[in-house]
Structures are given as C-alpha cells and as structure tokens.
C-alpha cells in the first residue's frame, strides 16, 4: 500500500503522462486468476483489493487507494498467469500503463531506470513486512504494524476486507480497535 509521497517523481510523472485513464465500477475485476497481468495501475481515486481465492474463502493480500500503484506484480514480472484476483471495492478512476510503455519509459535514461529500481526495492521490502505481519501472533500487534504503514487505511477500505488482510475475524478487529 505505498503512497505517492514515497515515489521518485520523474518516473511517476512520466508514467502518469503516458497512461490511459479508465473508470471502473464497484465490483468489476481488473484481473482474474489465470489471466496474465500486462498492466500497472495508478489509482487516482477509489479503492482496489488484490485477493487469493481458496476452496473456502477470499484472502485479501493487498490494497490500493488514492495515489498508489497496484497490479498483480508476480504475474507482471514473470509474464505468467496470475494467482490473484484484482477487484474494485468502489467505483475507481485509474491510470493504466502497459508493460511495453513502462519498458519504453524506464529505458529512456539511466535516471528513470534507477528510479524504477527504487520502486521495486520498495515493493520488495513491503512484501517482507507483510510476511512478518502474518507470523506475528498478537492481533493487536498486527493491526499496529499495518496502521504504522498505512494510517488512513480505515478511511479507504471497509473493515471486513481489512480483517481478512490481517487474518482475523471482523468481530475481532472491531473489538481490538475499540480496546487495543
């Protein structure tokens, strides 16, 4: 759930300039399991979730809201079918950049390429933070960590989805918010 403030600005501006705007209604899927991710999305306004579907439930693994980038990164990089679904939680205005366009931009000069590396490094460290989240036994501690990274999370994403991300029941999340 990175926000725009942390991003290298030249790269972000170049990507935004080259992107196509798209408005998607609440509930629509950007990507389904089995489809290959060809795009990177920048969210202007709205809310997006990335989830993994098992036989029994949907597991939310990532969110995106105003000012963040999102996609099915592993599928994007490997050019293989996605294990995840990407869905709009609310009506969302997106900027869409294709992988080809992205490649064109980052190969323009060394600076842009370096900035892309910084972006990927951020994504990697966020991924590791998330791995640690899941290993932490205390629900309150898990909540605390996520709020440190994304203080405005509850303003953008409904509680039931956050509960799934934190791997706890919505009732548990409600309770620990009131009495942490």
């Amino acid at each position: 759930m990175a926000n725009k403030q942390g991003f290298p600005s030249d790269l972000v501006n170049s990507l935004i300039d080259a992107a196509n705007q798209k408005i998607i209604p609440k509930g629509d899927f950007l990507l389904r399991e089995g489809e290959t991710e060809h795009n990177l999305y920048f969210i202007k306004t709205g809310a997006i979730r990335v989830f993994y579907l098992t036989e029994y439930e949907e597991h939310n693994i990532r969110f995106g809201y105003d000012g963040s980038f999102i996609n099915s990164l592993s599928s994007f990089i490997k050019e293989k079918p996605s294990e995840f679904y990407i869905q709009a939680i609310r009506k969302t205005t997106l900027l869409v950049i294709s992988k080809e366009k992205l490649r064109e931009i980052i190969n323009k000069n060394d600076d842009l390429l370096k900035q892309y590396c910084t972006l990927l490094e951020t994504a990697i460290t966020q991924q590791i933070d998330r791995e640690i989240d899941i290993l932490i036994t205390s629900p309150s501690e898990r909540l605390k960590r996520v709020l440190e990274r994304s203080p405005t999370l509850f303003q953008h994403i409904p509680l039931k989805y956050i509960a799934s991300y934190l791997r706890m029941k919505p009732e548990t999340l409600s309770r620990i918010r009131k009495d942490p």
Partner: protein
Amino acid sequence: MKINSDKLIQELLTITENARIAAEKLKSLDTFDLNRKKDAISWSILECIEHLNLYGDFYLPEIEKQLINNKGGSKSPVFKSGILGNYFANLMRVENGKLKKMKSPKDKNPANSKLTITTIDRFLKQLSLLKSLLNQSREVNLTKTKTSISLSPLIKLRLGDTFRFFVFHIERHLLQAFKVLENVDVKARATH
C-alpha cells in the same frame, strides 16, 4: 446396499468430472444470466452453486480430517451402506433427470448473498479437492471410517455414504442450475 469399493469411487469420480465440465460451461455465461431468478424464492444459477459451496465448506474439511485420522483402518473390497446414510444418499439422487422438490436447511440458503464469478471459481476449486479426496479414500475402509454430518454432530455416517450423499447433492443442484438456464425468458434476453 453393497457395492465394490473401487467401483463406487470410480462412479463418484465420474459424476465429479461431469460436474467440473458443467461448471466450466456456466463460467462462460454473463453475470446477468448467472444472477437471473424465475421469482423471488427460486434460486439463480449462482445461488445454486453457492449452496453447493456452503455444503463443501462443511464436508470437505470433515472428510479430510477423517482420512487423516484413519480410524477405520485400511481398505476393504466392499462398501456396505448404513441405513441412515443410504437414506440421505437416495434422497439426493437424480432419477431420470427429474428432481424431487426439497427445502434446504436455513443456514445453507444462499439467497440474497452477494455472488459473482468467484462463486463458480470457488466451486471448481472444491471439485478439485473432492477429486483428490476420493482418490485418497481408495486406501481406507469406506464402511468403518465415519464422518459427522452438517445437521447434527451426534450423527455419524459411513464415509462411503457421505461421499455418495455429497456427490449426488452436487449433481442435483447442477441439474437445477441448468434448468434455470433453460427457463430463461427469450424476450427478456433480447431486450437486455
């Protein structure tokens, strides 16, 4: 009711495979048709599938648990049905493409829950797990291994009957789903 164990598993695997093919077909329909209902209390296609998902949520982990516990010991060439298990299995059976009307337990009524294309994807994953469990059960005693049922924790069924009931139940509701499709009003489709 007595049947050769391998023959039973094979028959159930065949019905499961047919279910998979049917569900893949349903995936190609658009969301409007999948949510279409004949009237307020009838189920849409997605509601039929979600009903099956709800049963799977109980029975698949339960079957998996009993296979791991393996209290019934190793396989026996013949499966002998229990009285109650046979009753439930036959209740679900589809005879000559006809369905007997039945009421579903309240907690397994999917009506009005939010359903989308992931409903069918989830069902396909459950079918894949079911196929795996059927294959695993070739090595256990289908008569002596028991499972609970969703209606009451006090009642146990023989694993062979649980599988029969569960698989016939799937067949029944998929037939219901396809009948919903047949009843689609052609005029309404044209104006959509």
